[in-house]
């Protein structure tokens, strides 16, 4: 693979070795391990990924989560590759000058996350008269680009100031120029070392055949979940099959009857390409982990793990999403509401993978995604709710509510939906339905929240939704 412009062999790595450990073993110790689970961003690096126009984007990802083998044939840049102490990169210069580093341990990661945003092709300064959102700088810098980086020293203000005063790349900027050429093509890989085997199949059919022949094979997309298992729980899967670069899994098509989203398209890509066309998802994305995670994490992964606290299921349940499951024998389509069968259990067969998610059209008119967590950026939800309602003539004509964090699986709140449909959208209905919603599921108490709080949040979430629709309609009428 190419690191900071130099070819380096995948020597010394095992199938389980993370990109971070591999980088450090090759002498590039700029990237740090702060948490080994994709929470702190001290390991962030840039990866050359394909953009929509045949060119390249510089995408910041957590090196601690990605297996080194998954980067075979790819190009990456670390803080050392951005600049040197004698010749700082513009991002590094701003960070240093603003007092953006104190202990400096998180700083190389911040530099990479910041550089990813610096090179974002569609980053544009706010035009005069534009309302500047508090999470965007006047230079168009999206603060969410740094949502996956933790700093324990500075309190963040100087880092934000550095980010918001960045200009645009100069004409002779090599990394900027690199964007106009294609990203490295996926490289089929079959790598065995250290008691593990990593396979990147050349095609979807090859992947499906592998799944058919090797039922214990573990599917890998962004590695934002498996990476944590590898690092924190010592998981060493004997066979990993990487599917995130298969073109069939990276589609996004808006049709007449549904929107189809490839299961392995990174969430950031989905967010960018949908560009607000699915308002419920537009609310979800900024609350889903961090940009560093969304740059690798996928719908397929979030659904594939079957976790009851994944953030996409409540939203997708509310959208009435269906999944396309593919196997060597063909494809089938299932309703997401029927997909989860138990704690981390689903109806997906061992020989199947999730190829795509289909969101039926037209979309409901009133939608919202509510996530209850301690932190606004990068947190795991205590409970999460997706709402999709149709209200016609003041009456609720359809309702779908998805819940996460209240049971062993994500749930549809059928009883609450029934308490809404056919009734007027008013305080009485909402209060009654809120009481029903409050008793949906069987939330538990843990370190994130008590069961009582979780239940109350379900009920209060509907009240909050109602309150926001009332305020909006007032604004409309005014």
């Amino acid at each position, binding site marked *: 693979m190419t690191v900071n412009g130099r070819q380096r062999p995948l020597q010394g790595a095992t199938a389980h070795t993370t990109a971070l*450990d591999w980088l450090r*073993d090759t*002498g590039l*110790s*700029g990237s740090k391990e*702060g*948490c080994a*689970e994709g*929470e*702190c961003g001290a390991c962030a690096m840039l990866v050359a990924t394909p953009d929509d126009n045949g060119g390249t984007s510089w995408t910041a990802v957590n090196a601690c989560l990605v297996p080194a083998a998954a980067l075979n044939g790819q190009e990456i840049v*670390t*803080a*050392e590759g951005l*600049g*040197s*102490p004698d010749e700082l*990169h513009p991002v*590094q*210069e701003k*960070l*240093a*000058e603003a*007092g953006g580093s*104190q*202990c*400096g*341990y*998180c700083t*190389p990661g911040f*530099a990479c996350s910041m550089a990813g945003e610096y090179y974002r092709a569609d980053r544009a300064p706010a035009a005069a008269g534009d309302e500047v959102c508090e999470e965007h700088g006047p230079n168009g810098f999206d603060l969410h680009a*740094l*949502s996956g*980086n*933790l700093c*324990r*020293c*500075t*309190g963040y*203000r*100087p880092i*934000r100031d550095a980010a918001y005063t960045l200009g645009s790349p100069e004409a002779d900027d090599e990394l900027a120029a690199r964007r106009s050429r294609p990203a490295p093509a996926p490289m089929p890989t079959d790598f065995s070392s250290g008691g593990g085997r990593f396979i990147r199949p050349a095609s979807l059919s090859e992947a499906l055949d592998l799944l058919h022949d090797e039922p214990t094979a573990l599917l890998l997309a962004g590695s934002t979940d498996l990476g944590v298992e590898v690092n*924190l729980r*010592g998981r060493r899967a004997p066979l990993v099959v990487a599917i995130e670069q298969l073109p069939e899994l990276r589609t996004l098509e808006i049709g007449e009857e549904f929107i189809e989203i490839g299961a392995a398209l990174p969430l950031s890509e989905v967010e960018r390409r949908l560009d607000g066309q699915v308002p419920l998802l537009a609310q979800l994305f900024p609350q889903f982990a961090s940009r560093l995670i969304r740059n690798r994490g996928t719908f397929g992964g979030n659904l594939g793990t079957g976790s009851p606290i994944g953030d996409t299921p409540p939203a997708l349940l509310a959208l009435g999403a269906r999944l396309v499951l593919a196997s060597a024998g063909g494809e089938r389509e299932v309703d997401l509401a029927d997909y989860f069968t138990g704690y981390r259990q689903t109806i997906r067969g061992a020989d199947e993978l999730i190829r795509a998610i289909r969101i039926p059209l037209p979309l409901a008119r009133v939608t919202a995604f509510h996530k*209850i*967590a*301690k*932190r*606004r*950026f*990068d947190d795991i939800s*205590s409970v999460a709710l997706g709402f999709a309602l149709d209200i016609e003539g003041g009456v609720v004509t359809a309702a779908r509510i998805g819940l996460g964090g209240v049971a062993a699986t994500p749930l549809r709140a059928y009883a609450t939906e029934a308490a809404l449909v056919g009734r007027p959208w008013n305080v009485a209905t909402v209060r009654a339905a809120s009481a029903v919603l409050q008793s949906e599921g069987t939330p538990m*108490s843990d*370190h994130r929240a*008590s069961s*009582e*709080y979780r239940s109350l*949040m379900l009920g*209060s979430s509907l*009240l*909050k939704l109602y309150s926001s629709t009332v305020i909006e309609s007032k604004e409309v009428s005014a």
Partner: protein
Amino acid sequence: MSALADRPANPVVGLRAVHESAALHVTGAAMYTDDLAAHTAGVLTAWPVQSTNAHARVTVDVAPAYDVPGVVRVLTADDVPGINDAGIKHDEPLFPSEAMFYGHALVWVLGETQEAARLGAEAVKVDYEALPSYITVSEAIAAESYQGIARTVERGDAAAALAGAPRVFEGVTEFGGQEHFYLETHASLAILDSEGQYFVQCSTQHPSETQEIVAHVLGISSSQVTVQSLRMGGAFGGKEMQPHGFAAIAALGAKLTGRPVRLRLNRTQDITMTGKRHPFQISWKAGFTEDGLIQALDATLTADGGWSIDLSEPVLGRALCHIDNAYWIPNVHAYGRIAKTNKTSQTAFRGFGGPQGVFLIEDILGRVAPVLGIDPAEIRRKNMYRPGQSTPYGQLVKDADRLEAIWQRLVDESDFDERRAEIAAFNAASVDTKRALAITPVKFGISFNFAAFNQAGALVHVYKDGSVLINHGGTEMGQGLHTKMLQVAATALGLRLDQVRLAPTRTDKVPNTSATAASSGADLNGGAVKNACEQIRERMAKVAGRLLGVDERDVRFEGGLITGLGKFDESLTFAEVANAAYLQRVQLWAAGYYRTEGLHWNPDLMKGSPFKYFAYGCAATEVEVDGFTGAYRVRRVDIVHDVGDSLSPMLDIGQIEGAYVQGVGWLTLEELRWDETDGPNRGRLLTQSASTYKLPSFSEMPEEFNVRLFENAREDGAVYGSKAVGEPPFMLAFSAREAIREAVGEFAPAGHSVELGSPATPEAVYWAIEAARSAGSASVAATSPAADASAEHDPTGASAGSAPAGADVPALATTEA
């Protein structure tokens, strides 16, 4: 020698300087201890076998580890040639026969790779013979499980004053600890060199003590061990006492294998093995006049020290010395004790007990103000120290008038009154969202309570070419100490900043150093560096005087040039004079030394003047609270803080901002939850990773953040008129907690006392809102008598913000006298 606080013309101190390693930080070129290991050939990795029992006698069978390929050696108690202890109090066996907490390291496996060491550790067999354990403070109190010496701070007659006070309140205040979460976990790298010398690179705030522990574990003298602390990726007190054992493990491994040994804890190991900020449980009774003047405070503070004593005694001492915060309390009786529990051994953390002491008085004021019908800002202001008053332990509050001056400046600059009015209008129109703006002061004593630590050394070399290399005993953890020391040296020698270099902190350069702690790093080491530089400057002045034809007293060093008074046309470079001095056989290097004068303290009586001076500040924080969820946002923060005459303004502002946000993390977000059940995982830390223990991220940064330094603030007792800055601003974060409390109060009728769990997580805030909403028209004054309140208070749940039942327990009660 010039006076300590005097600045020469055009000093380099006081200029805005970027961190000396900034260019290395941003490019990843800055090396940390484990980065050095990554560049060291043949290094072995150490991995712990951790107890899975909170308290048990253990029998360890290490033989199976040797069957794992790549395992080189398992270190056990039998391998220790010296003393099997990781601390200076001799209550921390390095290889214990009794596991004292869940996560306690029992033995260490050395492997060719991390994978081998980890698998080797997994293979080690441990048998546990379970013993009774205490996880919560309440359990320890019930079992009378204490450690160390209990202390009392006393002034006047608190009991009599309480009996005579018009209004008396009492309650229980309880709050959790805090994980340091320095981004760089504990790390050591030990090498045994060809001369039998141990060179230990260690992420430590206290290299000399690390050196002593390594020596006593290995049974050798301190002179055979050199410890270097290159730089730390954050420390915050967590690397003051805790690194020693890890360094000793690495050194022992190097001794037994002859190979370099690295030990770096991963995040989960670090969180589950190392100490944290002390949680406290405090029962209290406070007397007030009708118009809100504090008359008396009686309190029992129980610090949760964890399994060993560590720094718990001085932490408790500082807590007891800060229960007044910035307020005059005429009658005080404060009794402090240390619980012994089967948890990590709690240790130093930014503020070192100060935040815990301040918590009490701010909590009391925030809870009683509505009941007394007094604006919380007003009750705070009227109780602040006035000039001439002294603390409960008998120290005059020097420069007390600064408190009022800082407060007033903050009120003016933050548009406090106008914004209060805007907020009132907002709240009147908003049912589900409420805002509040709160202001709190801080007064924090500077110096180590342990007098011997108030000394420092430095070593300054001037080479023949005029270049300067400085060394001092302080360590760099991100606070910018090295940058400030370069500024001090450049000022003292009349050089430009770029003419001075600094070498890493090593015990073979400056011996017997103090921990870089208690915010005193710049005060102490700055004094020593200045002293060394001035010795050299005086010798060079003699040489320059002869060259310039002026008396040595008329020689001036400034901007890299050396001139004589009145000799406008003639100047020498520093290098010219250095070279001339060498040729004239004048010594061009010096050892500097500093000790803080005038301190005295009697720990048995808890009386004296332990602090050289006090650092002051005030913060005004505006928050918005969501009534549906309890979630909140910090909308705007204004701070005016006293750092004396700043040595380095950008670094000082960085310390203030960082401390504030870290304090907000402790008070609102960061939550340590332990398994308190009797199940198989009793004593296990449930929040042991970055995904479960949440520190402030970008979303917790104040949307508007204005920090200003108090001006014309010369402190005569410290180097170049500056003041310490590391810890004091941490306590400015109480303004955020009090703002949340006031916003919650907006959901209740006037007069409702808001009890807020700590940390004030969204869930804890939600329960407080629920209590506020259901308060009805009856004020807390009408609720049950005090004795019931503390008895009813559920110490394990209510204050942790987790038990909804606790939310409507009236823990604050008042009795009409």
